[in-house]
């Protein structure tokens, strides 16, 4: 028996392998579903909800929901993209995002989603919450003003680095990333080469002395929307 199944994405039939998530199958087919907490090398987490799709008319997280034969998935609809944009807008007003001087600007996934989804100004009032910066480590610093609580650092440290440097503490609006240390970031066994550092999608965890290396115009999302790499597979998929 073949483990291949078929389902539809926005009315187009695509093939998938049993056991894949909707996001994995869509990626392979060259269809980009917006995402923030998902990362290809990490286990699905399902926390940000940016990847919400309609599966047989019910909302589901594409990064955690497995494919099943004949399911009808809607993704590129005005309604879903508006929900996605509203999530991105909430993240912008909850943190303090001064893109103008942020070292991650141009390479930031949150910002790039704002561009792709057409955010000009958030519909929600800015909160201007107070957050800390920990620059105690010689090579790394963490700016909680820009953290979107995606948990990629927490999961990367465990799943990929075999460490346990980051952990969530608190609930709701008080939730934040904390370190496995009695003091501060410098008291952990984190290293600048950890995958946890590079996998932060925003400018919350950064390497010191590496800022602004790429000129404006040449950065990752300056001229190509986020997801273009996945969408460029579509042409290849069609030809084969």
């Amino acid at each position, binding site marked *: 028996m073949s483990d291949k199944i078929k389902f539809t994405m926005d009315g187009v039939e695509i093939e998938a392998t049993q056991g894949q998530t909707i996001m994995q199958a869509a990626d392979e087919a060259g269809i980009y579903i917006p995402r923030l907490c998902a990362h290809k090398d990490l286990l699905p987490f399902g926390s940000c909800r940016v990847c919400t799709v309609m599966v047989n008319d019910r909302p589901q997280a594409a990064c955690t929901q497995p494919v099943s034969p004949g399911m009808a998935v809607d993704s590129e609809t005005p309604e879903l993209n508006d929900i996605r944009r509203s999530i991105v807008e909430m993240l*912008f007003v909850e943190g303090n995002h001064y893109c*103008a001087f*942020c070292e991650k*600007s141009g390479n930031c996934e949150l910002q790039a989603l704002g561009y792709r989804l057409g955010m*000009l*100004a958030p519909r929600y009032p800015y909160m*201007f919450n107070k957050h800390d910066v920990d620059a105690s480590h010689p090579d790394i610093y963490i700016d909680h003003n820009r953290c979107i609580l995606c948990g990629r650092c927490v999961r990367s440290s465990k799943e990929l680095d075999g460490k346990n440097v980051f952990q969530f503490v608190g609930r709701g609006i008080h939730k934040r990333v904390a370190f496995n240390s009695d003091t501060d970031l410098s008291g952990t066994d984190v290293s600048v080469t950890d995958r946890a550092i590079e996998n932060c999608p925003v400018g919350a965890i950064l390497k010191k002395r590496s800022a602004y290396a790429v000129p404006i115009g040449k950065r990752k999302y300056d*001229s190509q929307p986020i997801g273009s790499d996945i969408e460029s597979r579509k042409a290849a998929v069609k030809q084969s």
Partner: protein
Amino acid sequence: MAKPKIATASLAGCFGCHMSLLDIDDRILKLVELVDFDKSPVDDIKKFTGRCAVGLIEGGCCNEENVHNLQYFRENCDILISVGECAIMGGIPAMRNNIPLKECLDEAYLNGPTVYNPSGKIPGDKELPLILDRVYPCHEVVKMDYYLPGCPPPADLLWQALVALLENKPMDLPYEVIKYD
């Protein structure tokens, strides 16, 4: 037919957005053919002389004068546009927003390492506009009709958006010109 009028203001901004408008280079000659400038730092007209088609606002509101000025623009402009990050989200001046106002004033006028202030007082002259508890984005004070992000917004964005508005065409702005930095 009389040309439509545009007005501009810099509230709590750095004039960088106005500089970016000048950065449209020789298209500035076309702009002068398209519009007349009313109240604006560009021509130093202080009071509106008539109704304006478009008002461009740089900067957010950090004091009461900014608020009055913004309301004055809203009353006199058909379309009001937040230009740049400070108008849209407060920008650099908003970095004081999670610090209590008293702490900010004490640091600026009493305790800062480079402060020279023999009076030992925080300036309170009636001529000085009262500072607000925090910096407000323009759309949290009056209704804004459009947003042109960037720090500053590129000259191409300002030009293309203005021409589309004045010629009543849809704003078909390319991906490259909408940036938050």
